[in-house]
């Protein structure tokens, strides 16, 4: 029975990773850059909810809405100021380092405003826990909300990308920027939109993450960010279903290895699995293989 509850916990953690990984994978697909600041946008989302709900006493729904709006604006601003000028730069490393700079900036801003000590985040989820099989399996309200929001986001995003004009424009830009521009697509606006969606998802991920693990520091976002990035690579970076698979597999592996092998070695095991997958399938599980032309 404990195995099943571990599995459910794993899926719950994996759903959070999947939502974060979506932000990475969409941005990578369209702008071909690793957005290292994505993890810190999660932290900003968490702090916004903390500030609104715990410090100002606003209703949780309003707090979440505020966090989503703030993170969306933040994502667009970061892209406009820090990444857009470097899009045509000679080396793709330049924008990577700028992203690291943005990550430092967000962390230190949060450090200045909220201080270094850990904040106790009160969960914004009010759904009661479900008890199954004579109370041997307890599924917490946070878990239910996390898994449901992950499914809703996945379906919504897939529909958005495949059925709407803006989504089709995103696909076109990720395929070929130049050709998309010739077809009358506004490349800059499309990339901004991608950052906006990714950052809004980061705000939701921040809410879910902090509700499940209720401690908040300026560095809260960085390790889940890295893990979600690993999940995105694992599933094949640039692919939306890949992010879902990668996130959930990673979450399950992490929780199971924490439970059965060693809690200290859990991260090492997660990374080891990633390496093995990449060595067998160098572009991830659902990644497209690109033939190199001479």
């Amino acid at each position, binding site marked *: 029975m404990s195995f099943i509850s571990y599995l459910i916990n794993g899926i719950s953690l994996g759903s959070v990773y999947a939502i974060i990984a979506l932000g990475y994978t969409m941005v*990578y697909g369209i702008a071909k850059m*690793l957005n*290292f600041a994505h993890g810190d946008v999660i932290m900003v989302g968490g702090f916004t909810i903390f500030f609104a709900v715990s410090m100002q006493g606003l209703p949780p729904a309003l707090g979440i809405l505020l966090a989503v709006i703030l993170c969306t604006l933040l994502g667009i601003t970061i892209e406009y100021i*820090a990444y857009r*000028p*470097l899009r*045509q*730069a*000679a*080396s793709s*490393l*330049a924008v*990577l*380092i*700028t992203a*690291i*700079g*943005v990550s*430092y*900036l967000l962390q*230190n*801003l949060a*450090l*200045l405003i909220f201080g270094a000590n850990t904040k106790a985040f009160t969960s914004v989820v009010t759904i009661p826990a479900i008890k199954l099989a004579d109370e041997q399996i307890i599924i917490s309200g946070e878990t239910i909300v996390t898994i449901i929001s992950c499914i809703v986001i996945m379906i919504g995003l897939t529909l958005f990308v495949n059925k709407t004009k803006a989504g089709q424009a995103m696909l076109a830009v990720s395929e070929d920027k130049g050709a998309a521009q010739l077809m009358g697509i506004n490349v800059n606006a499309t990339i901004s939109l991608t950052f906006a969606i990714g950052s809004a998802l980061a705000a939701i991920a921040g809410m879910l993450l902090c509700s499940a693990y209720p401690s908040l520091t300026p560095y809260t976002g960085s390790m889940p960010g*890295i893990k979600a*990035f*690993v999940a995105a*690579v694992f599933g094949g*970076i640039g692919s939306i279903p890949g992010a879902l698979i990668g996130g959930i597999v990673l979450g399950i592996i992490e929780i199971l290895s924490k439970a059965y092998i*060693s809690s*200290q*070695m859990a*991260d*090492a095991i997660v*990374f*080891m699995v*990633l*390496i093995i997958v*990449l*060595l067998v399938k*160098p*572009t*991830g599980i659902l990644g497209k293989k690109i033939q*190199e032309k*001479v």
Partner: protein
Amino acid sequence: MKKRNISKNVKDNIITYGIVIVAYIVIQILISAGSLSSLMQGLLVPLCVYVILAVSLNLTVGILGELSLGHAGFMCVGAFTGAFFSRCMENVITIDLIRFILALIIGAVCAGVIGFLIGMPVLRLRGDYLAIVTLAFGEIIKNIVNVLYIGKDSRGFHFSMKDSISLGLETDGDVIINGAQGITGTPKDSNFTIGVILILITLFIVLNLIHSRDGRAIMSIRDNLIAAESIGINITKYKLMAFSISAALAGVAGVLYSHNLNSLMATPKNFGYNMSIMILVFVVLGGIGNIRGSIIAAVVLTLLPELLRGLSNYRMLIYAIVLIVMMLFNWSPKLIELRKRFSVKCLIGRSKEVQ
């Protein structure tokens, strides 16, 4: 023509060595004049460590053209093997310098071997996938070191991955690597002079490699892999060569680092991906493939937070802003064009045109 080219390289190298030596002499004079605060003096050895790390990472990133985010992992290997050796041999080899040189060699060889073993499967991957796998390896190395327990008693070495009690040491036993507590009591053999000598040796190795036949082969792989392969360059061999030399030099930096500290622990701060990223920042800001730039960037960026110490809480914020602005200024195509238009050379040229 060929002769002039070579002499240009030599001249360039001499300038690089000269900068290091002059900086060393200036700092020595400052120390003897007593105008260097103890805080700054404590920063000198870490400065050497960062310079070696930046130069060695530039070999992978700038010369080989592969993005590695696991450099701190190799440093970690070097630091722990070197410190382990020194701790074991503390009473056997009593001459500090010989023991330290042996520790350096052991640290470098171990890091190099690990780099070779990791590089063999991993260098098949390209670009960002390689980056994420090296990041993963760095984290794995850090994690393993954190659960490693090694003790020594009259019966020999004992090894465990659980805790120090399960080592089953006898009463005379000595726990050398104590899991997350790391290694304590490493002899403090590092000093600034040794650090600078190691920087010079690192520069000698890297600069000579770049200007050798092998170095040109490595750079041809960076510029065009397929073309390099088609003219008969052994891709795997040269990639592995650059990668393991880079790892070995990171190991040297690690040994220098560990012998400067009384207690050595593998924390996310010193051997995690944050450290690897910081070294990468040095390399990219100093100019990818530019060795002298790496040195200068490493020194400036290490000193910057210390110089800003007066601003207390705002210093890391300013550091981040400086980093972003410098990257935009150095790399944005629009700003580069703007800088060209208003550069001194261009203004002189324009005034001549008017005449």
